[in-house]
């Protein structure tokens, strides 16, 4: 049996989700954003919610997320996505609403919006991509940058006296009564991707059953910002990011 004989619709195992369109993504090669976008598309598709979903895009690398998934989107000002999502969900309680935010957007400039949306228990999903660096603006320090890790604005490595500590914001959000699910996932292996998708689905289901705020943090890579190959980035992430940001559920009620 040759290759051409296998390529038939009935033999399909896996492909680009239908909700992800053909627009070429502006992300760098190997960027974790692409996989996370796919997972969101798959979950929305599988839940049959594509006509009921409103996504809120951040400022940062994912600013153009709205160009890649064929759902309705709003583009927020930097850090304000949870405020937008709050209004969208409260005004439309039957819609499925999520924000997609990076570490700068969610854990620096938008900390207040993030914490208060979670504390109010807004019935939204917050997808949090933590790659410990600012990608869009050219690799500056993020609130989640590891100690000793060098970036454009901490070229000698993050230093506690100068920059304080990496912010484990998901741990903080797990303390809030308004959150029902806080989980930390990654997408560096096929197994990790499958597990992450399961938790993402749970998060979206929580939002529809009005259980409170669900946060899915993706510990991610930034090959360009970290100045490594995508594969090296994954290895570096396992060795350096995971000890500080261990994968697993911080809260699941």
């Amino acid at each position, binding site marked *: *049996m040759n*290759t051409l004989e*296998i*390529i*038939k619709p009935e*033999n*399909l*195992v*896996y*492909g*680009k*989700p239908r909700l*992800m369109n*053909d627009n*070429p*993504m502006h*992300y*760098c*090669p*190997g*960027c*974790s*954003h*692409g*996989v996370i976008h*796919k997972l969101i598309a798959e979950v929305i598709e599988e839940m049959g919610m594509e006509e009921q979903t409103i996504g809120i895009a951040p400022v940062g690398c994912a600013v153009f997320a709205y160009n890649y998934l064929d759902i309705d989107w709003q583009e927020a000002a930097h850090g304000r996505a949870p405020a937008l999502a709050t209004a969208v969900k409260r005004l439309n309680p039957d819609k499925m609403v999520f924000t997609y935010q990076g570490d700068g957007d969610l854990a620096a400039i938008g900390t207040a919006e993030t914490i208060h949306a979670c504390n109010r228990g807004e019935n939204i999903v917050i997808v949090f991509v933590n790659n410990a660096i600012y990608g869009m603006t050219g690799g500056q320090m993020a609130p989640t940058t590891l100690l000793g890790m060098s970036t454009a604005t901490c070229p000698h490595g993050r230093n506690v006296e100068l920059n304080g500590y990496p912010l484990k914001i998901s741990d903080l959000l797990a303390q809030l009564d308004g959150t029902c699910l806080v989980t930390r996932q990654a*997408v*560096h*292996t*096929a197994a990790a*991707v*499958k597990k992450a998708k399961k938790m993402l689905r749970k998060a979206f289901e929580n939002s529809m059953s009005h259980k409170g705020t669900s946060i899915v943090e993706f510990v991610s890579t930034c*090959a360009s910002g970290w100045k490594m*190959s*995508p*594969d090296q980035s*994954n290895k570096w992430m396992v060795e350096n990011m995971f000890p500080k940001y261990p994968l697993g559920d911080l809260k699941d009620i």
Partner: protein
Amino acid sequence: MAKIKGTVVVDTERCKGCDLCVVACPTDVLELAKEVNSKGYNYARMKNPDECIGCANCGYVCPDGCITIYKVKI
């Protein structure tokens, strides 16, 4: 005994040659081509098509959604 045979189709124009699929493949099916696509990326392709078991690991980790996987039981 039934054998599983798979194959992958790479959208070579969409591919950015990040190599993550190559690393993820358990049976060493994929490689990056010497040739480049119109954007200048060395795209992924099958070097050992016969080894593919259709596990889709390459597809799962592909950030750009450019891999489609098929499989059959023979």
